[in-house]
Every structure is written in C-alpha cells, then in structure tokens.
C-alpha cells in the first residue's frame, strides 16, 4: 500500500547529487532527488495479534487505511508526527523498526475520541493507541509513560478507597514521576484559588487531605477487582510471549 504523506519520507532516504548526468541528460540540482528504494526484511508478523490481544486493540484488523483518524486527530493538529493511520498500517504490516521510531509519542493520545467518531470501520483507533502504548511498555521498548504512571496511581487509590481525592492523586503522581510540586504556575494557581475562598471551604479541603473520602464496605469490590487485574495481566503475559523476554532478562542479569 502506498504511503501518501510526504512527511513520511525520511530525510535519510532522500538522495540528491549536485552533478548528475543520466543517459547524456544533465539532471543536476533538484531533478536529481531520488527516494532510496528500501527492502524491508525484518517483519514482525506477531505485532498485530499481540496488540489485538490487549484491551482496545481488538478491532485493528478492520482498518482499511482511509485516514479519517489522522485527519480528525487533536494531537496530529499540533504534532504532524502523531499519525494513528500510519501506525495502524505499520502494525498490520509488521514493520516494527519503523513503529519504534515513534515509540515515545504514541502514549500522547488525549483520548478525545474524534477518531472513533470519524472512523467508518469501527476500528476504535483511540483504543488501538492505548493498546499500542501498553504493548511498547510491556515489551520493554519504552519506560512507563507519565500517563501510565498517572493511571496506576489513580487506580491504586480507587482500589484502596473506592473514590478519588484529587490532591492525593496529584501529590503521588508528582512524587512517582520525580517532579517538584512547587512549579511557578502551580503556586500561582493556588494563590488565585485561595484569594476568594471562604474559611469553611478551606477547612473542608484540609480535612480531605488527611482523611480520604471512601466508599464503605469496599473491601469485597476491591479484592474482586485486584484479582481480575492480576488474572488479565497473567493472560496478557502469555499472549505477548513475555515469559521469553523475562527469561532472557534474568539470564542476562545472572551473567
């Protein structure tokens, strides 16, 4: 399938000769720009199946590359490198090394679901983006993204109390990602917030910081959820053939 976006032709594949004569015709200058032919031999045919095995990736096989997702994408509008259509193509073709070039931005999908709205084939590209960023992390291609850390901090809190108390989530997230809380804009925001806030409200917020709001009789639900998460995690480990990776890592560590 041809790739139409000009930006997808990598600079290193563009060849220009200052002076070039072909069959006696002078084609120097921009006439001599060629796109390097390439031979792809390192297919990883397992990728599509592995991503389809992760939540959100189930419908990737339905894609027929119309590009509606990229066209409607919020993140693509501010970063043209963010291209769901292209990534779905690479995954389905098994072009792993090309996919890995963009490994550090795929997690930046903001889940606005404009793609899901536009997609004529019910691929749920938003889900595919989540599945792909999970795949990259689980396979060890990328460290956990800040977003993944946030999701984990959030989910841990729900398992514990059933509810979210935002100041806790924020503090834990900043701690886990080793960021300082006292950034100038954060200080300014708190200042403006406090300007008009009545004492009663301040007290209420203060209490919530010490005593987390919680759902009562939550332990049953919490352990049922934890059990389900563990079970799914185990299943996914097998589907992604992670045991092999883990073995290699352990052998490397031992050596």
């Amino acid at each position, binding site marked *: 399938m041809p790739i139409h976006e000009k930006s997808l032709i990598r600079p290193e594949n563009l060849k220009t000769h200052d002076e070039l004569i072909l069959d006696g015709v002078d084609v120097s200058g921009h006439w001599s720009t060629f796109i390097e032919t390439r031979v792809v031999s390192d297919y990883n045919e397992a990728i599509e199946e592995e991503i389809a095995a992760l939540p959100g990736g189930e419908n990737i096989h339905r894609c027929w590359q119309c590009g509606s997702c990229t066209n409607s994408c*919020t993140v693509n509008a501010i970063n043209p490198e963010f291209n769901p259509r292209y990534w779905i193509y690479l995954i389905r073709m098994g072009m792993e090394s090309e996919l890995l070039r963009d490994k550090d931005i795929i997690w930046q999908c*903001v889940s606005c679901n404009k793609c899901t709205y536009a997609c004529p084939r019910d691929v749920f590209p938003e889900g595919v983006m989540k599945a792909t960023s999970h795949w990259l992390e689980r396979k060890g291609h990328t460290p956990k993204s800040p977003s993944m850390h946030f999701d984990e901090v959030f989910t841990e809190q729900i398992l514990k109390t059933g509810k979210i108390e935002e100041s806790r989530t924020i503090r834990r997230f900043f701690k886990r990602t080793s960021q300082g809380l006292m950034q100038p804009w954060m200080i300014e925001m708190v200042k403006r917030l406090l300007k*008009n806030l009545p004492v009663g409200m301040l007290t209420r917020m203060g209490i919530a910081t010490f005593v987390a709001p919680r759902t009562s009789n939550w332990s049953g639900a919490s352990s049922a959820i934890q059990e389900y998460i563990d079970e799914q995690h185990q299943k996914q480990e097998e589907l992604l053939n992670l045991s092999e990776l883990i073995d290699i890592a352990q052998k490397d560590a031992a050596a």
Partner: protein
Amino acid sequence: MTKKDKYKKVAYYPGCALEGTGHAYNRSTKAVGKKLGLDLVEVENWNCCGAMEVKNVDPKIQTYLSSRVMSTAANEMNMDVVMAPCNGCYHNLKKAEYDLKNDTESVDVVDRLSKKAGHKTYESGQVETIHALDWIKETIGEDGLRERVKNSLSGIKIANYYGCMYTRPRHIFPEKDAGPGSESTSKPHFMDDLLEAAGAENVDFPLKTACCGGAHTLSDSDTSTKLVLNILKTAKLAGADVIATECPTCHSGLEMHQIRAEKTLGEVVDIKILYFTQLLGMALGLKAKKVGVHENISNSIGFLKEKGLG
C-alpha cells in the same frame, strides 16, 4: 411517563471531582435544582466511575465500577434515572450501559465481580443515565426558564464549551442525533438553549466539542496548555466574555492551563470561566456565593457585579 415528569426526581451521582476541584459545580447544581423544585437524591455510598484512568488500565474494570453505581441506584434505591453532571461520570455510565447491552463478555465480568463484591449485578436497562443539561432542559425547558428568570444574563456574551465526553463516541449516546428536540453530537446546543433562555447572548463558537487535553492535564501538560490556549483564544476572538462549562475536568483544565499559559508561555487571555449551573443559578436570582463563584480560580466576581448579577 414523560421525561418532564420522570426527571423531576432523580438519583444524583456527583462523582469524585465534584467533591474536590469541581465543588462549585456540585454546589450550583444542587442550588439550581432546589430553586427549580427538582428533587435530587444522592446515590448511596457511591464509588468512582473509573474515569479515563481505570479504563486505560482495563476497560472492563471501568465498566464494573460504573455498573456498581447504577446497581445501587436501581436495586438499593429503586430509582430509574441517574443524573451525573460530570461529563466523565456521565460518559462512563453511558459506556457501561452500552457494553452491558451489547457485549456478553462485559456482562460476564460485571456479574462475576458484582457477586464477589457482594451486591446485585446491574442489568442493562434498569436505569437511564442523563446529564445535568438533559435534566434541566427536559423538566423546565427554555419556556419554563424564561418565566423564572429574575436577573437576566443579558449583555453577557458566552462561548458554550461541551468538551469531548458529552458527545463522543456517538454509539454510546443512542438518544442523541435522534431528530427534532434531541441533542446533536456534532453541534451540541442544550447549554446554548438554556443560557439563551436565561437572557445570555451566545457567540458563534466553533470549538464546542474540541479537546482540552484533560486526559494528560498533568502527564503531558505542554500539550494540554496548547489545546486550552487555542480554546481560550478562539472564544475571545468570537467575542465571548465567558466560557460556560458543563464538566469539572474541562473547567479545571481551562482554569489551570489559563494560568500555566501565562506563566510558561507569557500568553494572557482574559476570559471568565463559569459552570453553566452557576450562570443559570444567578439568572434565577441566587447570590454569586450560593453558586460558588468565589470557588472558581478565574475571577469573575467584579465582572458579574458590573452586569448586575451576584
């Protein structure tokens, strides 16, 4: 029973954000309900709907969490309508409803988890989930509001901002795009209708359903700041004094990144951000304090006084 009667007494699901950063939305929703004679019965011992974050960890857990809320409303409280003012909660309950109606695997997982957790399994169709916009639009409507307005919002130019979760993806909102009187997923208008009935002038705002980057508001703040700045600037260019919101995540995102844009990019956009329930409440004669205007970060107290409100 007509929607008008059915929505008069609803199970109220505020959700986590409305007990924290979105407290002003909680407060103003309750105050407006009281003023309009509508009955809100809070869902007993509710839990988080799962939000975007749990969905990212595993979508079926989010379905379960949302189903537990609906199960409590239906089975413990005998209610048939759940009203959620938060777009995230509203979206998630709708999504759970869709999944439980159409996906047997979700039904199995929810049943298994509900049994282990020790409560009745929610079955699709037991409750109808509505947004605070549906609630006021259907029970009181524009005509009803016009009759009740004490302080018209006239002279206030508003950009109505609905965000992502209220309309997308469309398959979880079967009642939208359903002909006359229904909400539109491409050009939502319920908030516009209500605020116009309260006297406000709605500006032509093309980014009603644009994304504020709420999902990564802290994990990818630079992206969120860019997206929010675009929304603020466009609203300003469209001539708006105020952006009206109907989601706590959008609201706090706009407020937070308005400041972040000032501090990190030096871009100052002076526009007030108010929940639609705050605006409606003041139009109905409630004091600014009663609807929590002083809890907002963007300071609109002076502006509202100038316009004869609060």
